[in-house]
């Protein structure tokens, strides 16, 4: 006769393992449906690609207690307003270029990647671009010749030359601008942004 208590038996734990796993999977699938709906471009958390036609701010939301992206007045990227399709095409070119150039194995994007170079989540809003008026031009020049436009801030680290064309560079800038508009629950915290027109309105 077996002296094993029910709570120490093989069959009890086998059933528990199956039911726990199945339950967690169902919860994950339900949450996935909701999450995907919320993060599809054009929603409140992840704006439509045409957001690159507007000025983007990153400000402290006192109610939420953390920083939030704010979409401001019209300020088309490279001075040319794009339709939703054109904007998506440009952002996608940039996104694909960041993959083909393997940016993620030096940089982090939304905090994920490697830690050899700065995070790109809010790179569009970084103070390092000096002034709003020269930002786009500086970004394009830097991406096409990173060695010649070094941005090491006292470190000897330099971005390598990745043979980025002007068209690809424009795509990357569009992608970075769009990414900076994503609601990341306040990450990165306390980010000091570049001064932009209309800053005091928000």
């Amino acid at each position: 006769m077996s002296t094993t208590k029910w709570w120490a038996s093989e069959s009890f734990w086998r059933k528990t393992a199956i039911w726990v796993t199945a339950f967690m999977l169902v919860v994950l699938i339900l949450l996935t449906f909701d999450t995907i709906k919320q993060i599809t471009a054009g929603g409140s958390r992840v704006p439509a690609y045409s957001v690159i036609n507007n000025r983007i701010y990153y400000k402290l939301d006192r109610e939420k207690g953390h920083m939030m992206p704010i979409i401001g007045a019209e300020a088309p990227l490279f001075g040319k307003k794009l339709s939703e399709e054109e904007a998506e095409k440009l952002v996608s070119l940039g996104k694909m270029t960041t993959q083909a150039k393997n940016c993620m194995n030096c940089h982090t994007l939304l905090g994920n990647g490697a830690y050899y170079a700065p995070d790109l989540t809010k790179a569009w809003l970084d103070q390092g671009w000096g002034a709003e008026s020269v930002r786009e031009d500086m970004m394009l020049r830097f991406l096409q010749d990173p060695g010649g436009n070094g941005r090491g801030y006292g470190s000897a680290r330099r971005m390598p030359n990745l043979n980025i064309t002007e068209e690809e560079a424009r795509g990357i800038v569009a992608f970075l601008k769009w990414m900076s508009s994503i609601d990341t629950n306040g990450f990165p915290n306390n980010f000091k942004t570049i001064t932009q027109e209309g800053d005091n309105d928000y």
Partner: protein
Amino acid sequence: MTTRKFNWNNLNSGQKVAMKYFIAAMVLFVAQILFGLIAGLQYLIPGLFYNQLDFNVVRMIHINAMVIWMLWGFIGSCYWLVEDEAGIPLVGTKLANLAFWLFAIAVAIVVVVYLVVQIGPGNQQSLWLINEGREYIEAPRWADIGIVVCVLIFFYNIAATFLKGKWSGISGVLVLDLVALAGLYLAGMFYTANISIEQYWWWWVIHMWVEATWEVLVGCIMAWGLIKVLGANRKIVTTWLYIEVALMFGSGILGLGHHYFWIGTPEYWLSIGGFFSALEPVPLVAMVVHAVYDSGKHNFRNKNHPAMGWLIAHAFGNFFGAGVWGFMHTLPQINLYTHGTQWSASHGHLAFFGAYATINIAMFYIAVQHWRGNAYMSGGIAHAWRWKWALALLNIGVMGMTIALLVSGYDQAFIERALEGASWAGFFKAQISTWFQQGMYWRQIFGYVTAAGIILLVWDLLTIGKSESKDALEV
């Protein structure tokens, strides 16, 4: 003096396939450490191989070699134990060998392309032929498809052998786990411009592999290993395995939420991810209790001392690396400041080594013991210092790197994140700060210790048991 040779006739057909995977895995393990050393040096000498072999390429090979060698170790382990568990020969040996060679050749081509071509223009062709530029699963799309085919052949072989032979608790868990493991890889095989959606599914692959299905897989290998090496009671070990599966999937599936704090996903993930990932160390504690209890119960009398040493190293390494180091920065209140800093690198080094390198090495020792005709490998073997020092150097090396990276990580989190708000200037201010730099120097020194450990490990695996006249201890 007797000399035991490596003899393929000592192995069953599944074990012959396993041996090929184990050898290939060791080659990639060495490559992983070599490229790790170069990447570490590039932190200290930023101009090293500038515009020739840049950090992104070196680091990609470092982490890809790791993923593939560990996967090969797992595949090898399954082939190693399948005939023993199922009680019949492997159903498709030829197919298994074919899949191995396809897989190995594909990996070789991918690495050559990584090294020579490196990057391409921003179009689909680059993602299909060169690399996908997505951390851990960088392999170009053609290789993804190849990997899926090879893994399907592997899955067919394992599942069909059990179906034809007999089932056990271990094999049941193993086969169901392999279904999930193979299926999840598909979640990473598409392109989208929407980075939030991309990273959502990308984590399904990465997290569900390393924090769920891989953990359960090594739980199966551990269960089988304890029975074989220690003579542990199958019924008790199987019950433990079910408990671990319940705890692992109970915490790990929704623990996925700790990757969904900052990528654009809704706020409810902060609570769900924080809560469930805080529970993730629980099954790892259970594993330590399980392994130490079983070893003590048998007074550490076992048939393979090096393998037993590495199994114990696995239990503790998994708990500290994945459990403690993961828990340290898993709560969103902390993670807001540590996400994407050297904290992650610190955790990554100890977790991958502690949870997965260790148990694969244990399997390598079990394999060479049989390859040499069931050689004696318990107390008093010749040149025992080699395996002991290999174990010590590898563990001290990785632990040292982990602590050093954590010091740098603390420094980075305070300066770059808390003070400077993650701006580019703040990033570099942290990178050139004295404490950060000191951490990087120590990381490199411990990297060399790790490298010394692997040289000794390779030497030991090639020679252990060679001059033993006795057969393995019966347990």
